[in-house]
């Protein structure tokens, strides 16, 4: 689904990312781990064409991301708060995203029903603008919005940070279900090795912009990752 070839990104003369090759097949749940500044967000920003690669190219379902906008209909993401529109209420925001993805208002309402528990009564019908919600609730709204319109590729940066334990568990279930039952390609990054190994079939560890580990998940994965980061 996603092919990364010779991608590199430098700011001035400092290289922050260099990935010779990475292929993510359709339906895979892909986890990206790394310390602060390892290049996780840089990679995701490149995938979304938010920054220009210094070299190489990324294709999303055969569409070269930096040359065409055609990958947008099946790709969605939540990277940070700048993906929220602060002056809208959660509903208005969901409807707006729905409009963009060709999902009608009633369909969005229907789509939101199973998330009621996930929202814990703090998102919908709150008469509050998104900018006035707590960080955690903003994140919930952003993640759910990224699921609207049956995207085939979902990119989530640090989805577990700022969430309460209950929501973390629910989110993990949800992501697993999406990748297993609906063949959605999910890319998530995290600092939390436990969560990532829980959710993802494949985990890649990056350090200083380069891939150091690329593991299919087994029972030993968590140990191996812990050993890698311990040194």
């Amino acid at each position: 689904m996603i092919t990364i070839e010779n991608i590199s990104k430098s700011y001035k003369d400092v290289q922050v990312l260099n990935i010779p090759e990475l292929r993510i097949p359709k339906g895979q749940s892909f986890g990206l781990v790394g310390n602060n500044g390892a290049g996780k967000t840089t990679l995701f920003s490149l995938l979304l064409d938010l920054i220009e690669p210094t070299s190489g190219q990324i294709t999303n379902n055969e569409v070269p991301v930096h040359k065409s906008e055609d990958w947008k209909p099946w790709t969605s993401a939540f990277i940070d708060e700048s993906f929220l529109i602060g002056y809208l209420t959660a509903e208005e925001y969901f409807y707006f995203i729905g409009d963009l993805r060709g999902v009608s208002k009633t369909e969005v309402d229907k789509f939101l029903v199973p998330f009621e528990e996930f929202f814990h009564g703090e998102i919908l019908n709150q008469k509050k603008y998104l900018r006035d919600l707590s960080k955690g609730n903003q994140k919930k709204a952003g993640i759910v919005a990224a699921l609207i319109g049956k995207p085939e590729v979902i990119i989530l940066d640090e989805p577990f940070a700022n969430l309460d334990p209950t929501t973390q568990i629910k989110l993990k279930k949800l992501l697993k279900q999406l990748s297993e039952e609906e063949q959605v390609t999910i890319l998530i990054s995290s600092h939390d090795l436990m969560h990532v190994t829980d959710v993802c079939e494949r985990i890649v560890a990056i350090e200083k912009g380069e891939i150091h580990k690329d593991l299919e998940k087994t029972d030993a994965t968590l140990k191996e990752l812990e050993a890698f980061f311990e040194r």
Partner: protein
Amino acid sequence: MVAKFLQLEWKQFSRSSYFAKSLGIKILMIFLFLYFSAIAVVMGGGFYYIVKDAVPEQDPLVFLSSYFIFWILADLAIRFFWQQLPVMNIKPLMILPIQKNKVVHYLLGKSIFSFFNLYPLLFFVPLAGVLIYNSYGVLSVLVWLVSVLVISLSLNFINFIINKNNTYFYSILGLIALASVANYYQLIDFNAVSASVFYPLYAQQWTVILPVLLLILVYTINYTYVFNQFSLDGVVGKKTAKVETKELNFLNRFGATAPFLKNDFRMVWRNVRPKQVLFTAVFFLFYGLFFFTQDFYADKEWVTVFAGIFVTGGFLITFGAYVPSWDSEYYKLMMSQNIPYKQYLESKWLLICSGCIIASVLSIPYIYFGTKIYAIILAGAIFNIGMNSFITLYGGALNRVPIQLNVKAKAFENTQGFNLTQFLIGLPKMLLPIIVFLIPYYFFGLKAGLIGLAGTGILGILLKNPIMKLIEKTYQKGKYKTIAAFSEK
């Protein structure tokens, strides 16, 4: 302690991104500042003689007193829109061993150092000098000067009280309207009332005590307010706005651009900054009065073209100039969601055009000055829609200064989103209409000039698709730079 605060303040100022503006902008700002200051000084110095000349039968000071109430109201209105209670980053100070009252006094004291308080000083001090020179009592004038300055300082604090509540503002606005109507029909002579209230500040020196008491009162109100709110859920915490949800279904007829239009409507309605801009745009409507009421311009038809452009182009100039910055807070979303640039730009274009159309409807009363005048305004509107809208959008592609939607612009900081390229791109907006009007006008008269102006606009509308494509390409080219610039805060 105060020295420490000042040090923090200085660092905040000198390290802010505002300050990183180019040298040219800094010079321009200093120039503007000096220009307005000079105006104030000259007005203050000349006031006595101007009034003496215009209304020889009245004592200029009585004249001033009779209009003083209006000055107060105008000053309040201006402050309401442009001045905000200075916010110090007190959150980190809250858990440090610093006495609360010191911080609050400092915060309120700091608000005095504002251009809005300097202005009265620049105006009234020269005026007082001239009064003394013209053998008014020295002591009386000085006491009067103190009173006036204390009143202006009180306005500074009254503004912060008003600022917390829109109803205060609208009641004052209503009061002004009522007062002007009552004054016009001579139901109540506000000038007389004003004179009898404010002239004693000069004539009876003991009255100086009243403004001083007022100042103490409003300062105390502010002090108590801030002091009591000095907690995380008070002043420091974000205010939660009351939500008004409207479906805005009537916009659905615009098809694919409807979701963006809805968004833009909400953006303008729910954020402080765009509202401020909208308010400024309304002022542009009155710009024509400037030209059409003066005999000086009566025989200079070509100048009125400016008026035509400005009267209907207020929204285009004030709002349009900041496209895409309005979406800077969530630009990454816009760039990664399923949004073609084309629709995004189209929605902005429609918005700008609606601004022009609404303005041309609202300017129908200009027919009072003759249908010719209104024809000029309409031609200006067509030009704005067909030409200036595109120029503005094109200029936006080079505009990379983020805007914080829910923060008021401060006076002299309203250059967010302003840069030299912006200025150069803005030039054709003014020059082009003059050219396309002037040449046919010179040879064939007014009608030809208007046809030239409106015709260029219509041509632009006809060529909309290729022009939009060009603009779209320019935006696409600058995409990464814009995203990077907008994510800097």
